[in-house]
């Protein structure tokens, strides 16, 4: 019988010598709405999401609404829904509506649950909302076989169908790809995706490229043993790091970073969002990647 996966923090999560990043302001609230519950099981998943016994439980609707309300008072600029797969959450549409009443809102999805009906409902939500609704659809390669080797059989077709359904309703999805299947000697992954979307008839292609992190199912394949030190931050602007202006509400508390949600070393509060406004610890190998690439999980 398949046993559940448990993700553990590195042993040095509480080492007092690790550098920290001061909190500046709340630019982004992330809701890890389905925890690590997903209908796909991608080989590079940042938080090892999958269909069996999620190691990080989904958030209940009331906790999410409470976080949205508190974030509004605290002057949040934008709200994100992630997981797992957010569209597996039974309350996802009313929760998106609640967030859109407060701030521009983004949902990250693998596209598998974007049926014609859901696409219609998202278009209706977007047209009623005061703020922008963004849908980010994950796709890792423009080639179906290469994509499905990473994301699972049939994932490419469903994601592309979702992109086309959203585009047909004017929702301008942002296609998000990791560099997992980047191939040397060809045009850049960014250009390949833009060309691919143009080929689908999408005249305003929106593409976001993310690095692969040594985390989740990729743990141990890169920077696993590297750590940031106080010296490595000399001359570095910590405002570049999203943990300076981002907080993540997930099962068990408020965390510093979307990809470390659920890890005790990244937890800053077990209660209110406001209580998490304190320095975040750069204790994880994933922090090395953010420091090196300057990447952000945000749309732009």
């Amino acid at each position, binding site marked *: 019988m398949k046993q559940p996966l448990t993700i553990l923090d590195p042993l040095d999560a509480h080492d007092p010598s690790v550098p920290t990043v001061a909190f500046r302001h709340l630019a982004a609230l992330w809701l890890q709405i389905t925890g690590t519950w997903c209908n796909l099981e991608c080989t590079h998943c940042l938080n090892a999401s999958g269909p069996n016994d999620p190691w990080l439980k989904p958030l209940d609707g009331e906790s999410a609404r409470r976080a949205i309300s508190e974030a509004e008072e*605290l002057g949040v*600029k934008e709200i994100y829904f992630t997981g797992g797969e957010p569209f597996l959450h039974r309350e996802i549409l009313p929760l998106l509506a609640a967030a859109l009443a407060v701030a*521009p809102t983004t949902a990250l999805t693998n596209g598998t649950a974007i049926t014609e009906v859901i696409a219609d409902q998202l278009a209706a939500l977007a047209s009623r909302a005061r703020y*922008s609704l963004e849908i980010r659809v994950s796709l890792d390669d423009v080639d179906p076989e290469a994509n499905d080797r990473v994301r699972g059989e049939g994932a490419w077709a469903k994601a592309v169908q979702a992109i086309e359904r959203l585009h047909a309703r004017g929702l*301008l999805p942002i296609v998000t790809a990791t560099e997992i299947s980047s191939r040397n000697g060809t045009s850049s992954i960014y250009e390949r995706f833009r060309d691919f979307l143009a080929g689908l008839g999408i005249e*305003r292609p929106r593409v976001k490229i993310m690095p692969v992190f040594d985390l989740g199912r990729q743990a141990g394949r890169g920077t696993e043993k590297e750590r940031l030190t106080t010296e490595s931050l000399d001359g570095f602007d910590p405002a570049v790091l999203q943990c300076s202006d981002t907080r993540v509400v997930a099962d068990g508390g408020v965390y510093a970073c979307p990809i470390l949600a659920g890890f005790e070393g990244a937890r800053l509060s077990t209660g209110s969002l406001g209580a998490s406004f304190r320095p975040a610890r750069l204790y994880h190998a994933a922090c090395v990647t953010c420091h090196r690439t300057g990447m*952000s999980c945000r749309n732009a």
Partner: protein
Amino acid sequence: MGGVYNNWLALDALLEDARRRDVDAVFCLGDMGGFGPHPDRVFPLLREAGVQAIQGNYDESLATGRTDCGCGYTDPRDNHYALVSYRYTWRNTSTENKAWLGSLPRHRRIELGAYRVLMCHGSPRVINEFLWESATPDGLIRNFLAENDADVILCTHTGLKWHRALPQDQHLVNVGVIGRPENDGTPRVWYTVLTAGDTLQVEFVPLAYDHEGLARAMEAERLPSEFVETIRTGWWTTCLENLPSRERQRSRF
């Protein structure tokens, strides 16, 4: 006004329009350079007219010798064009004018009637923060106003004008830019006239100028044809990947 972007022809037209309207003062919310040709032509106009300017991210970069404009783009294509523009402006801005940009304040405060007005480039907290209409929550505006003891915040940086009035007569106004058109399919640019009476009146003013003359000057300077196309058609061709979906839906590209 905001975002001159080297467009001395639009600046000249604006100053003439403002004189005709007999306004009390002219303020510029920064980013004198970028995009257009002949950067040094805007500075004499600004100084002779007594324009009270603040620093934008472009001005800060030029003054401090940064290697990029600090516009805050994250898209590779946007960053490519931003770098082309910045390198041109850097090469063609005099040392004296770079120093002048360095002398500008980051914020200005005025009292307009009973309104306490704070001027900034991007946002009160970050010089290159984008405040788009569809992506700026009321709660954020309320926090900005409370933290800065202001009734009105004026900003620019995005290139798109908008105004939101909150209850209790509080306001955020993005004044737009005069350096490039508004991504609306016309070559006109926009500035803003504020008048304090019983209420705050915010008038967005369209400005026609010799955009064809600017386009020809850009071609002569071998600036990217994509930039020239924007000046002629009014549609943005570059630096638009960070538009939120609502604003991007109105965009041609």
